[in-house]
């Protein structure tokens, strides 16, 4: 491509990119809180180190300016309790080393009623923990320049029996609430806003995400399976009774003007309600999926990223997907043009250029199962009321970029039956 063509297109993209919204909204102002003295800060650090099994760590109603990480190491039955998310604030703005603000490893741990601000990496990370509850926590970044923000706000990884309840996660450069390589998960009553991804379930088994609000992110709720991880492929996620609205925030995972990098989240087109990527056994129902300018729901295979899509014990396809009884509202905003997936939707969708879509399917299927997609080889099941009024697009991408086609026909995906089973009943009492 020669430069004289490229430049005007680039300029156009930048102008359009500016149509994406931005948010620096804060739930409360922590600067008015009384400050913890150096001794009080040191005591909290020490409490995390010296607490014994069965103990409680109390976070006073103060603003803690921490210069070192708070790490709980291999303890059992610990409660870490603040005086309220707007009262007890842990700020990691001055942390000089370490990958996250708070790190939890152990068994049966409860974190409740406090805030974490401005951690350079992740806000709160828990790893190798069986029984972890995040309740009424607020994790955020207060930088004006959001490209300086950290990766994940609430980040359980390689955990079992995870409950995230009543939390607020905002302004993270990747996912606000990110559950990775874990099993038995509830995410409920929580709010994710101003993040690149609101709530993300990645390489997990047996998860339910319900009664949450995901608004003003680039993408609202994501279910991904990435290749090459110790927990190779996850299955079994239900997403229901959520409000997934106005997820039109610019994608700030890379600096404005920079393209995506190898982090999959950098490819998310602003204006995405729900994205399934290499997802297995997912049921999505009773959600309000409103005013997401690019697409309400995207069902995609990993090949769409353009990255190598072979890995042991892992499949790049999304399959066994059951979508029903959701409410959709489109917007008149122009769909995203800053990301490849956004451009694909904006330009090639089956309803006319620059039209918001309700449901898109990339139409990439496993040709070893069937030689055509009309047999619905990946078992994608759409049972929405008034399907004829929705903007549904299935793409044909199997011949590469030069022969992209799109179809409105949803018949192959009707009248099917996919059973997604999850069981998180043993988590209810935590």
């Amino acid at each position, binding site marked *: 491509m020669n430069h004289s063509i490229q430049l005007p297109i680039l300029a156009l993209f930048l102008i359009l990119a500016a149509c994406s919204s931005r948010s620096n909204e804060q739930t409360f102002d922590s600067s008015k809180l009384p400050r913890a003295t150096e*001794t009080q800060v*040191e005591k909290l*650090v*020490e409490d*995390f*180190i*010296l607490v014994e099994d069965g103990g409680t760590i109390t976070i006073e109603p103060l603003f803690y300016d921490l*210069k*070192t*990480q708070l*790490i*709980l*190491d*291999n303890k059992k039955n610990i409660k870490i309790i603040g005086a309220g998310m707007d009262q007890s604030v842990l700020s990691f703005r001055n*942390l*000089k*080393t*370490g*990958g996250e603000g708070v*790190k939890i*490893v152990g068994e049966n741990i409860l974190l409740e009623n406090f805030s974490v601000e401005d951690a*350079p*990496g*992740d806000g709160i990370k828990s*790893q*190798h923990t069986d029984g972890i509850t995040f309740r009424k926590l607020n994790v955020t970044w207060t930088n004006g320049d959001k490209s300086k923000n*950290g*990766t*994940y706000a609430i*980040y359980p*990884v*390689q955990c079992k029996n995870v409950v995230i309840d009543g939390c607020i996660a905002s302004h993270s*450069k*990747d996912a606000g609430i*990110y559950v*990775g*390589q874990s099993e038995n998960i509830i995410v409920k009553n929580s709010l994710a806003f101003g993040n690149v991804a609101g709530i993300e379930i990645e390489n997990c088994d047996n998860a339910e995400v319900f009664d949450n609000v995901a608004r003003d992110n680039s993408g609202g709720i994501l279910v991904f399976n*990435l*290749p*090459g*991880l*110790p927990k190779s492929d996850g299955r079994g996620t239900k997403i229901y009774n959520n409000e997934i609205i106005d997820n039109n925030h610019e994608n700030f995972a*890379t600096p404005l003007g*920079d*393209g995506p*990098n*190898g*982090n*999959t989240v*950098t490819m998310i087109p602003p204006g995405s309600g729900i994205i399934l990527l290499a997802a297995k056994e997912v049921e999505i129902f009773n959600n309000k999926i409103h005013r997401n300018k690019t697409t309400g729901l995207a069902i995609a295979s990993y090949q769409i*990223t353009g*990255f*190598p899509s072979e*890995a042991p014990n892992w499949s790049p396809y999304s399959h066994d997907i059951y979508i029903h009884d959701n409410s959709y509202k489109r917007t008149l905003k122009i769909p995203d043009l800053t990301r490849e997936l956004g451009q694909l939707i904006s330009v090639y969708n089956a309803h006319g250029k620059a039209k918001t879509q309700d449901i898109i399917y990339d139409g990439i299927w496993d040709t070893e199962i069937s030689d055509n997609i009309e047999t619905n080889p990946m078992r994608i099941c759409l049972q929405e009321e008034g399907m004829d009024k929705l903007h549904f697009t299935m793409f044909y991408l199997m011949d590469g970029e030069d022969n992209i086609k799109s179809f409105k026909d949803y018949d192959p995906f009707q009248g099917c039956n996919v059973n997604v089973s999850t069981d998180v009943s043993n988590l209810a009492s935590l």
Partner: protein
Amino acid sequence: MLKNTSRIIGLVGICLLISCKESTKEVQPLPQEPLKEELADGDYPYQRLSTYGFFEGEMKELQPSSSILPYEPASSLFTDYALKSRFIAIPASEKVKIQEGDFLFPTGTILIKNFYYPTDFNKPEENKKIIETRLLIHSEKGWEAFPYIWNEEQTDAVLKVVGGEKEVKFIHENGEEQVINYLIPNKNQCKTCHNSSEQLAPIGVKIKHLNHEMKIGQKIQNQLTYWKEKGVLEGFDGPDNHPSLVNYADETQALSDRAMAYLDINCSHCHQSEGPASTSGLFLQFDQKDPMKLGVMKTPVAAGNGAGAFDYDIVPGKADESIITYRMNSTEVGIAMPELGRTTIHQEGVALIREWINSMDK
């Protein structure tokens, strides 16, 4: 019973008196409590490093007493150019055993690592300033880590579980003055690196790192052979029958061996299936043969800012497009790797890994 009651009343009285007295004066910051005299009673950890009696003569000379042995891994984990002197204390009449390729240490073993800077790196043994001493103590429950911070007078070091920071000035080998804000980790941060399946574990004290020759007294000798001759090591079948890594700084060695030795000592404590960075699927032990696990054309997972503008951990032949070199070459928290233990860039390490990636077939 009555006696007890009167005693309690008496105590309450004293408390009241104290609080009355205190209310009349201004509130002062608490003075640093002087450390009590301490006995070497075997009840670890001691508050003072001197209580262990590791060193003879003036503490700051770090002259080992006869109860401890020096050791040295072939390659060193980079810690802001700090020099390290390392010792192991093995309880009298006990032995280290080798089982299934790993050391098995007797209870009571202590690893002692002193971090210091010379005023001038061209005269590494002169005007040393010791910053901290880290002990790994092997108890019945497993290993535990204890950081001791040295005083300004360099007469002793005191246990400080919350860590700290210290400004250090020195002249680099190239003659330039360097100022470092040296960060002493808090006790639980130690396990960020010293971690195998969530149990605290030594990094450098592994057979593969110690199975090499070094100067012991006036003799050049394999240090594990020396341990065996001293009668403190059992199960060592000679240098050739155990794995051995090269010194990455030894330019006479093969480039890939040097690079793998560097990645092993600096990264693999986290980046292995039993380490905290197993989440990434990037595994960097010296004998890793699977290109994807080594990062070749592997996309990141949770790298955030750490990915920079790049797609893959290693792009063969293109060090400048590889996330590994990008993260090694940064000091920004959230980008810099390793996450802990350095606030400066290890220029020589970056150069080595760059050269190695650039040498890979495109």
